[in-house]
């Protein structure tokens, strides 16, 4: 039986049927986003708290829009300029915010496991909007949503995830979600940026783009400047030479994805970003509908799920 738990902390919380149910729900909400009045009353009178301990543009704004389009009251708390800035602990902050009786807390934290801890401290449903380098489950769901729309199904699809896998929560959630949906995943990047024993997650690992032609989908990760300082790669120039995805390196028909924000000219060439093969814009658009679906499934669900919640 399909069952979605009280929280969304990890892709591990979802089986394939749950993922499909969320995506089906997202399809119907996507239709709402096409209307002139982009709002449904599902969460009227309920409160959603967005608690962001890291800078974020698209995740925080799409969660805010998603909650508002479901008619929830939204409170956004950022670490900067808040009591967090004054040294309040995560636990105290969460318990304070819980006094407002929110239906859900959406949390982004620089530390793995933060969302799981929050779930233990509040009666609200908790949604992990990124915890350290651990997971970013709603990003993976919108990536699957985008691919499913384009391909119909991920079964048997070959997906390459290229770049800094070591520091990427998106990569971890995507590997889990893509394989759960039937895809074959290969991670590719400089050996310094591929975690030892990553194969235990059910993917292959390789250091070169030689076999990139096997991919149906090329999912490119963000390459951060600060990785140079720690000698993970000798220079951005050498990284770009070996791993930058350009139109020359792509076959016709291969799809291109990126979680954003893009470092134009580093992991992706400008031409690749703007090519018709790129689904980057579709990913961003999917964000709102998928996050509406996640909020809806956790807080309202279907009648059969009310008993579970």
């Amino acid at each position, binding site marked *: 039986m399909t069952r979605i738990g009280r929280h969304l902390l990890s892709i591990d919380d979802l089986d394939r049927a749950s993922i499909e149910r969320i995506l089906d729900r997202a399809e119907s909400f996507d239709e709402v986003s096409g209307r002139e009045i982009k709002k449904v009353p599902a969460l009227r009178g309920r409160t959603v708290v967005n608690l962001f301990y890291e800078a974020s543009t698209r995740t925080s704004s799409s969660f805010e829009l998603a909650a508002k389009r479901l008619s929830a009251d939204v409170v956004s708390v950022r670490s900067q300029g808040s009591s967090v800035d004054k040294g309040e*602990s*995560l*636990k105290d902050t969460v318990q304070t915010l819980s006094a407002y009786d929110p239906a859900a807390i959406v949390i982004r*934290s620089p*530390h*793995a*496991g*933060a969302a*799981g*801890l929050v779930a233990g401290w509040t009666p609200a449903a908790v949604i992990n909007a990124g*915890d*350290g*380098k*651990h*997971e970013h489950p709603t990003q993976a769901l919108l990536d699957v949503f985008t691919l499913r729309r384009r391909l119909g199904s991920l079964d048997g699809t070959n997906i390459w995830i290229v770049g800094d896998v070591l*520091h*990427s*929560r998106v990569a*971890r959630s995507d590997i889990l979600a893509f394989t759960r949906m039937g895809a074959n995943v290969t991670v590719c990047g400089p050996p310094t940026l591929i*975690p*030892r*024993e*990553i194969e*235990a*997650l059910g993917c292959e690992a390789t250091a070169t783009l030689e076999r990139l032609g096997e991919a149906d989908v090329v999912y490119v990760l963000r390459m951060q400047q600060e990785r140079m300082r720690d000698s993970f790669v000798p220079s951005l120039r050498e990284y770009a030479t070996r791993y930058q995805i350009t139109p020359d390196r792509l076959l016709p028909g291969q799809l291109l994805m990126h979680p954003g924000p893009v470092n134009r000219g580093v992991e992706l060439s400008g031409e690749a970003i703007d090519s018709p093969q790129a689904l980057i814009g579709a990913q961003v658009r999917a964000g709102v509908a998928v996050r509406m679906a996640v909020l809806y499934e956790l807080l309202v669900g279907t009648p059969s799920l009310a008993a579970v919640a």
Partner: protein
Amino acid sequence: MMSAERLFHRADRPADLLIQGAHVLDPRAGLDGPHDVLIRGGHIAELGSPGSLQPGADTETVEAVGKHLFPGFVDPHVHLRTPGQEYKEDIATGTAAAAAGGFCAVIAMPNTDPVVDDAAILGSLTDTARRQARVPVGFLASITRGLKGHQLTEMAELRDAGALGFTDDGKPVVSAGVLRRALQYQRLCGGVIALHEEDPDLSRDGAMHEGAVSARLGIAGIPSLSESTMVARDAALAAYESARVHFQHLSCVESIEALSHAKQAGANVSAEVCPHHLTLTDDMVRTLDSRFKMNPPLRAESDRRALVDALTAGVIDCVATDHAPHAGHEKEVPFEEAPMGTIGLETAFASLYTELVLAGELELETVIERMTDGAALYGLSVPRIAPGRPANLCLVDLEARFEVGAGGYVSRSANCCFHGRMLQGKVLMTVAAGAVAHAARMLAEALTKAPPSSAADHLRVR
């Protein structure tokens, strides 16, 4: 009291006890069967067959048929957090926790605030221990001033002030040159040099073992070789300088190989291993529960098995808890933010008994020996159940099962990696340096209520 052995404790009333009928297991004394044990004036006066000994005047009787009596355990590695971090633990609470775990002596680490790096600080600690320590405490001083790794402490003066030895525990001595000077200077002042082995250039900001689980969680890994390369380096230094070196809390198979190699080559090195490394693996970290965060980290199952084998073979010499208390608010944070360490004194025996002895991985005799062998490594006499010896022993109910933490902890802190686990083998009573240092509640009530000296007033141990 400070014995010739550089152990410090408060002067409690010497025990007069008749422990009747317990199964006495002391492999070194060749004892493995039911005996009466009479303790008079804090010393073991007599052993006899069950029912053969009579209590004298003012002697309490403890009826202990079906229970086990072991030599008291010795823990060569605890953090008592005094001075400076008494909100985590202090000498009174830490030694009470030790007694509750069956330990009759512990050795405290110097990474306090301030660091135990001069004789005045050590002097104030030994004074405190004389007033508060429920079991004898030995103190290590730091190798380098402020644990900074640059300048040696006044090791000779620290030895005169009672230091058992030296360590920068919590940190490695990164500079091979500085460590070499310390090993040379040891020829003047004596004292074991104990080493926390970690190459910080390899461990970096790691928070757990590097392997499949760290890959899954996205938490920076601490590779095994950050430990083993330093074990190999320092074993070579110890051999070259003919120094006495002890390796603390080894965690991985590569370190065992380096240690074994050094021992075969004749280096005067020894090593300890912690109960959590013998019983748990990095798989526990999947929960992201900060109770499983310690340094060295929980490693792979292959490492755990190799540690058990090395302990059995005596390649690793003894068990040490690395009891490391932290306050609740410090540990109730995301895993990567939490401080390293688990408490372990109250669960050491039960965790090894339940997870290894009952599972058939380790003999009970080996557990008893390795939980007492730490004493000899620091030049202390090893507790033994034999007439004439000071009473250092613990009475254990091997049948009793308990949920760790369900009744709270004797330690001031609750950061126990075995929290919530059902363990078997409960310590009922500990006699340390001749005095009753711990008695489980049932027993304690009986001991205080009993009128002196009637053979009819048997105390029932439950």
